[in-house]
């Protein structure tokens, strides 16, 4: 027991939280990669696309969680509502990041790749994308942390995850479960943050080589 909550309960809610925050992060990245690429490839697309996806972020999460069943035809308590909402928020944060990352690749590097006979698609995957990794993972870290926080609001619509400890503690006038929930959320967010930072290091060995010299 911790703060009046069984450890197994915390563990179960934590797994649910990871699922509801993590899957949309990956989906969001998958959607943002082509969007961000389009925004760098066709410059005129960038302002409306970045403003448009950014606008998604201003929709209050509670509204999105409740209104999505009406728009998607899903059931009110389906995880899908939360997954879709969180994916939208991830796209809102990541499209700009991907565009910035791809845009940060030096023109000379691109030209060199083209001169070596790389086609556009190959260059994007083999040259641009790896070089954009530091910028993209920086955005991914922000999105991961923000997802963990926003998912907890889904407790207000009865989808179980760590946020459920907030509503339960509040209803019982007991701060124990609320503190346990906050603690677990913060730890989860920091672990995800550190994990992505580590991944970024692993994916960009050339950056460390540069420092070493």
């Amino acid at each position, binding site marked *: 027991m911790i703060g009046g909550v069984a450890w197994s309960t915390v563990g179960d809610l934590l797994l649910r939280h990871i699922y509801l925050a993590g899957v949309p992060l990956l989906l969001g990245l998958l959607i943002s990669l082509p969007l961000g690429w389009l925004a760098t490839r066709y410059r005129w697309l960038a302002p409306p696309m970045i403003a448009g996806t950014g*606008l998604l*972020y*201003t*929709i*209050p*999460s*509670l*509204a*999105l969680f*409740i*209104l999505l069943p*009406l728009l998607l035809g899903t059931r009110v308590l389906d995880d899908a509502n939360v997954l879709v909402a969180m994916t939208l928020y991830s796209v809102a944060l990541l499209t700009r990041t991907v565009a910035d990352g791809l845009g940060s690749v030096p023109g000379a590097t691109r030209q060199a790749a083209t001169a070596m006979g790389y086609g556009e698609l190959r260059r994007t995957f083999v040259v641009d994308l790896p070089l954009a990794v530091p910028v993209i993972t920086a955005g991914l870290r*922000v999105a991961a*942390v*923000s997802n*963990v*926080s926003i998912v*907890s*609001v889904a*407790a*207000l619509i009865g989808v179980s995850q*760590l*946020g459920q*400890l*907030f*509503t339960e*503690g*509040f209803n019982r*006038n007991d*701060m124990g479960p*609320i*503190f346990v*929930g*906050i603690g677990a*959320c*913060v730890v*989860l*967010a*920091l672990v995800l*943050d550190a994990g992505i930072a580590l991944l970024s290091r692993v994916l960009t060995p050339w950056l460390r080589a540069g420092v070493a010299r």
Partner: protein
Amino acid sequence: MISLTWQWLVDPATWTGPGGIISQSITHLRISLVALLLAALVAVPVGLFIGHTGRGRWLAINLAGAFRAIPSLGVLFVATLLLLPRLSGNLAFELPVVLVLVLLAVPPVLSGTYAGVEAVDPAARDAARGVGMTEAQILWQVELPAALPLLLSGLRSAMLQIIATATIAAIVGIGGLGRYLIDGQASRQYEVMAGGAIVVALLALLVDLVMAGLQRLVVSPGLVVAKEH
């Protein structure tokens, strides 16, 4: 659904009166601005100090990261349970909400500020020292103006988050545009919820535009010219 939402939005009765959009927007903005100001009061001096001295940067980055990770709903509930018995009147409901929003706003303002100061051209700093400016003068007359664009960007993104998040205030019983979300859900008037969500997004957009305009006004023309060259 869409036409019902539209009808709700264009009905003049929706906008006026004590529970109308105009009055709820004012409450919403008031709470948001108070939170932004308080956050700036904390984060800007700290950010300037870190940017100027280079000290405590690691701590600030990690602290800002941890702040971002704190779930707003949990803090709101803890703060409400703690403050409700200790305060009277409306303040007992508003202070917990403001606290949550301040926590939310500190990281972007802090990182905007120190990143802005750090990005100041070292040559400008050296030149200021060269002409005999004190450290305080350098901070106020060189670094702060030069850091303004990034600082204001930090304030803008903080404000966007504040306005969207201030809607959860409605669950602990205070006004603002969140009322439409909470009361709309409770009474199954989804068009009210959808309309409310649209108004929140529009308000966020409007405030962002105003802040973008301000940013243009207060940023030294010297910086803009320098960037264009």
